[in-house]
């Protein structure tokens, strides 16, 4: 029963990925005008345009090109950049690791903090602590990512001079130096996601605390910590895991703005640069990577919340 549901979700996820790749491909396909013409400019002769079209493979029918493109993507061949003629996989490889490093870093800091604060807020509901937390969440939700980033730069890089304002990393950098250099961007991302995660954790637990079996436990005279940890938490696990993974997906996208703020050599920065220079193959490749990561993380969230739901695990 549970296997069937999981298999269904997996199939649905794969279908979504397929359609997403189709949208990304067709989105660029629908470009008004001709890509070759657009790159070469109006002054190009028809012969040059035709030759360039052949070189780009634009003379083939769309479905052949789509299959070519998708097949290449799956095998790690992402095509070549229009801007500098380099292989996109070379451009993206190291940047992707950098982006994943940043996202993972932020997640490792953010998840425990958010869950702990959320549980505390649920425990001491309506107290001053809870009110401060909800005010803090409201304000961090209201701040754009770049605002948080620049405030942190203003305080920690310009005033206190403890962290660098530009997160310039290189592949040969030792691990701990890297952790130090990337501290501010990671902290920015943490601020952005902690609020939401905490709020949802709190909501999940508060919801549970209203249910009859918790009231029963209270009436039985159990102590509060025991009720929370032993009775409420296992049932809250599924929504909490869901919130965490969804926020990880959010992190992967939130990375784009933060990378630009800190001039961090990641995939987001590359995407933004390619959009400005209209380097479409790079845009397609990076969009596909971002979208696929997002879809996959959401899929994992779905599956984990099914698997960690006690009701699903022990069907009647």
């Amino acid at each position, binding site marked *: 029963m549970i296997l069937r549901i999981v298999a269904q979700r997996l199939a649905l996820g794969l279908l*979504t990925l397929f*359609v*997403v790749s189709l*949208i*990304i491909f067709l*989105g*660029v396909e*629908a*470009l*008004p005008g001709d890509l070759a013409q657009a790159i070469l400019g109006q002054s190009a002769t028809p012969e040059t345009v035709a030759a360039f079209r052949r070189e780009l493979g634009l003379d083939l029918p769309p479905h052949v090109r789509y299959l070519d493109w998708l097949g290449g993507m799956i095998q790690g061949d992402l095509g070549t950049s229009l801007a500098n003629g380099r292989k996109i996989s070379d451009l993206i490889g190291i940047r992707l690791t950098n982006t994943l490093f940043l996202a993972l870093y932020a997640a490792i800091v953010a998840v425990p903090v958010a869950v702990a604060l959320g549980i505390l807020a649920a425990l001491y509901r309506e107290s001053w602590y809870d009110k401060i937390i909800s005010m803090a969440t*409201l*304000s961090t*939700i*209201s*701040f*754009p*990512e*770049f*605002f948080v980033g*620049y*405030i942190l*730069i*203003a305080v920690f890089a*310009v005033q206190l001079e403890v962290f660098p*304002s530009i997160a310039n990393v290189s592949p040969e950098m030792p691990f701990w130096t890297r952790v130090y250099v990337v501290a501010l961007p990671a902290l920015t991302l943490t601020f952005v996601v902690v609020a939401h995660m905490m709020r949802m954790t709190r909501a999940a637990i508060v919801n549970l605390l209203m249910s009859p079996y918790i009231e029963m436990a209270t009436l039985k005279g159990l102590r509060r910590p025991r009720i929370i940890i032993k009775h409420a938490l296992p049932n809250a696990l599924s929504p909490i895991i869901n919130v965490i993974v969804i926020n990880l*997906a959010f992190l992967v*996208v939130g990375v*784009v*703005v933060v990378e*630009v703020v800190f001039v961090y050599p990641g995939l987001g920065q590359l*995407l*933004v640069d*390619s*959009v*400005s220079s*209209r380097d*479409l193959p790079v*845009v*397609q490749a990076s*969009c596909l990577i*971002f*979208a696929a990561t*997002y*879809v996959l993380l*959401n899929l994992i969230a779905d599956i984990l919340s099914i698997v960690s739901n006690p009701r699903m695990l022990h069907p009647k």
Partner: protein
Amino acid sequence: MRDFAKNIVNAPAAAKLGMAIIAVFVFAAVFAPVITPYSETEVVGDVWEEVGGQFFLGTDHIGRDLYTRLVYGARNTIAIAFVTTMLSFAVGISGGFLAAIVGGWVDQALSRVVDILMAIPILIFALMILSVLGTSVTTLIVVIALLDSTRVYRLSRAVAMNVEVMDYVEVARLRGEGIWYLMRYEVLPNTLAPMVAEFGLRFCFVFLFISSLSFLGLGIQPPTADWGSMVRENVSGFDFGIMKALMPALAIAFLTIGVNLVVDWFLQKTSGIKDE
């Protein structure tokens, strides 16, 4: 109308603060040419002149009056975000209500399309489309509105589903009213409260989103004053310890907090009435 005034007078302090913030920003947006000493793109002084001198908030990275730019920024940013949200709601609500009232394959088709569109993060989707279509204000508004309308669709469909099963809708149906009548006169008035609250939240999202795009250099293009691009332009001052880039960012944060405070109050109030 008197109820409305009474409600505002009796609102909690937080909501009043929110309303005051919104009022100030809207005033600035509407009367921008009247309350500013210079024009939007005029270079009037030296680079990075200090706060409180000849210029109220000093000058920006090429010597334009920062106060004037901020006020015009309110006008441009808020207007564009507002138009985008309106369009998003027009599309989203029509789709959502239609799906809920007609049901069947219309509902299926619309919902599946929305599911797929929502599977792609909105920023990535927008960046992709903007790289193809370029970044004019019209493209920006239409693209963001369409992407955002998927979220509105979800909510309006869900809310309309609850209303659609009511007896009075059934009566209207039996009376032979058309789909438009059902949407406009039966469902809409009874879903107004959650929709208004959602409008506030979506406005914040769209507003932040456009600011982020402008900050990335892919939204509203210079020399038009816009808070997101103003942050981007003035960031170079950080190297000399000049924090002026934070002012437009702060304006963004204030407006979002203001709207959120009002929405919170509104939600509490409308849900309270329903419980009674």
